[in-house]
């Protein structure tokens, strides 16, 4: 995309990675994507009581084109799934997804034909957040956990290598629909 993509991997690139990660984590804008009761807790995080602006999220972006973080808050029905995917596709890179609450993470107690059994069936999820619904502190904790991952995010040559490794791992892994036991 930019100059950082042309850099050879080495001290220079890793320094820029650290700097870019530090800046990226401090300036994320979440897309408003409340689907159910979790959205109420997500709104509470925006209030002065918890104040999500302390983490560089000055406002929830109403358009996905200005957002970096999709907080899928609530159960995703089969009918909503294409919309979730479209909103995700409309977000510019780099972008992250938090599956907020058990319904978005795995379907939760709604183990039925109407609900997508985990939003990771349709979009790549970075952080899974349990809770039904999670209290606002839990969402803040998820955001802080995500920040820790963003700081470590590779760029340029390292990013290509990481993406290849992730693809290898994903191809080798058991598909979600074939998982058994508690993972299903």
């Amino acid at each position, binding site marked *: 995309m930019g100059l950082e993509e042309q850099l050879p991997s080495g001290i220079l690139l890793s320094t820029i990675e650290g700097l870019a990660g530090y800046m990226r984590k401090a300036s994320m804008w979440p897309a408003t994507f409340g689907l159910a009761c979790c959205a109420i807790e997500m709104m509470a995080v925006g209030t002065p009581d918890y104040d999500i602006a302390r983490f560089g999220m000055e406002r929830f972006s109403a358009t996905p084109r200005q957002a970096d973080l999709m907080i899928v808050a609530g159960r995703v029905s089969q009918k909503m799934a294409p919309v979730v995917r479209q909103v995700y596709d409309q977000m510019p890179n780099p972008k992250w997804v938090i599956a907020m609450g058990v319904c978005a993470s*795995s379907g939760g107690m709604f183990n039925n034909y109407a609900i997508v059994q985990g939003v990771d069936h349709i979009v790549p999820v970075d952080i899974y957040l*349990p809770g039904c619904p999670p209290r606002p502190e839990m969402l803040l904790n998820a955001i802080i956990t995500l920040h820790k991952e963003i700081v470590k995010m590779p760029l340029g040559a390292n990013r290509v290598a990481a993406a290849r490794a992730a693809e290898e791992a994903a191809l080798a892994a058991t598909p979600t629909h074939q998982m058994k036991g508690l*993972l299903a």
Partner: protein
Amino acid sequence: MADDKALATPAPDGDVAVPTTAARKRDEAAARGALSQVLDTVAGFGVSFGTIFRKLETEEYPEEKRPTAKRFHGRHQLNRHPDGLEKCVGCELCAWACPADAILVEGADNDDTPLDEGGQGRFSPGERYGRVYQINYLRCIFCGLCIEACPTRALTMTNEYELADNSREKLIFTKEQLLAPLQEGMAAPPHAMAPHMEERDYFLGKVHSATPEQHAEADQLTEGGAH
């Protein structure tokens, strides 16, 4: 809207034109002079400035955590008897009560045969113990029905809520993660029951801490495991 109308429609003949609100404001501002106009702008910041001295209501979350309600439903915990044996008897009532099918329990028989003779060891007083105990926190809705179902108070909930992680596997908590840490005077199972005690004595509160024999048995096992 009324003002717009007044501007748009010409005053009927013979009537005196009524001045609009905007026009009236202009006249008043001109009367008060330039200085007050400048001060008006500054006065708008008064609220913002005054807020600096107000008490901060925000919870500074990662640094200062506000305590939860005492009975907040957080992460589960598998409790122990005062001598370190587990309270869980592997009855699976929690798994049956769970509305989200988040709990997996597999019971097994306690075995008093010495370990060097092929025994499996004793983990709880009584007949059975929970050999496998898993809770999937991506299904668990923290309703507490499992706690109500538990006949031995083996399963309770803590106030811990920081559970977010980056993969599904990491959020399936196994027995090792759920078991309460060993307190003072507890010996790590497997070890024998307290001497001259039966299962019901544990629930009657007659066992207060692990005996030296139980400690010795647990220490021997950890040393044996280390080799």
